[in-house]
């Protein structure tokens, strides 16, 4: 499985990319493989304030639902509307299919995220 070195990872199997104080969040290749074919993404509301660890939205496969958490505190600035009718894009390209973006309010929380090697070790891949 592929876990790009350029990304950070969470214990809930999200990937995080940070640029200019904005975190872009999706789910990892491992997460989509565990869930199977995704059929629905319940996108978060833009403008919502979230704390690190809050449930922000859900991704759903034929047989399972997974909650997507906020890795960092901040305000949801964008949701990927393209996924509303194409949840399967996450299966096809998990790192190209971001789910939502957060304007980060506390940069100190970045240290809680894992690098690719640590994440790989955690999931045993």
């Amino acid at each position, binding site marked *: 499985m592929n876990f790009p070195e350029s990304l950070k990872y969470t214990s809930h199997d999200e990937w995080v990319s940070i640029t200019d104080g904005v975190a872009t969040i999706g789910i990892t290749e491992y997460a989509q493989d565990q869930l*199977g*074919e995704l059929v*629905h993404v*319940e996108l978060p509301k833009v403008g919502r304030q979230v704390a690190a660890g809050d449930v922000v939205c859900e991704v*759903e496969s*034929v*047989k399972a639902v997974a909650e997507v958490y906020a890795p960092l505190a901040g305000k949801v600035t964008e949701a990927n509307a393209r996924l509303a009718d194409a949840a399967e894009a996450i299966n096809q390209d998990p790192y190209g299919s971001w789910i939502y973006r957060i304007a980060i309010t506390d940069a100190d929380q970045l240290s809680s995220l894992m690098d690719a090697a640590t994440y790989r070790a955690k999931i045993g891949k």
Partner: protein
Amino acid sequence: MTDLRRTPFHARHVAAGARMVPFAGWDMPVQYRGISGEHNAVRTAVGLFDVSHMGEIRVRGPRAADALQWLLSNDVAKLEPGQAQYNGLCNHQGGMVDDVFAYRVGPEDYLVCVNASNRDKDFAWFSEHLPHRDRCTLVDEGDDWAQVAIQGPRGVEVTAALTDVDVTALGRHRFVLATFAGVAGCIVARTGYTGEDGFEVFVPSARAEPVWDRILEVGGPFGIEPIGLGARDTLRLEAGNVLYGHEIDDDTSPLQAKLGWITKLKKAGGFLGSDAIAARRETDVTRLASLSFDGKRIARDGMTVLADGRAVGRVTSGTLGPFVGHPVALVLVEKALSAIGTPLTVDVRGNEAQGVVVESFYKRS
């Protein structure tokens, strides 16, 4: 966790890269290439299922028919040798111990196929409540039989190519004793749980292992592929078939679960639970309904069903229907709201999914 049991085909599933999960004490394949693809292969071509985890109870003897007529809800007296019949196994309160299939193998010989999750419970129930025990015998044959299901529009061609007798003319719920895939002493039945034409084959477990690859080989030209328990569940749900532990359980009457067609309250002498079922007919307030959705949100087992904002029942099973292409759910709701065309809402983790009660989600053409 205790050691999981393995069917004779376990190594085949692992070799094929199936995702294995614990189910009713067995290590079973939940999916191979993916639930939707497997599901649609069964709807459009043919699929092969390992259902060896199912239990089998043998009832033999001069009073076997009478004994089963008392214990089971359908009219077992109507069964001729070579016929199979769907039945409820009910308790004294009118709930369901299980749903089972009874096969009349010979004049005084019946095989009852039971859910894997209920195998021990059902055998204990039979042991305690089967009447005429001086004139019939009871054997748990769950370890003696492997079972495969070959389901889908091309299932008959695959099964015919593997069986030494003609199965193409076999009627629904009829079976033959035959040599199947080179193994003598198999029961080849035109039954299934998927909503498609197809067969379920009981194979003596000691000789079953090579059968799996043989079916895939012979079925190859017909497009056969192995199907996991995930698609087995979405197929049965799309077809509106009930599952013990979801639509039916020890508290739910077969009439609530829309199983009146296998609940023969008027058969001579009644059956265990028939009086309670009759008495509950007026007092049970809920009834099963099929809820179809246009939107994307998927109602799941346990979610609350609402009508005009009021809680009126719960979801017993829900999924995206991979073939019909929209979410479907079976729901247990207030009787008056189970009528076809009734709009009902499901609370999907705080969001509403708007559905409508339908007659069925899918009927094969």
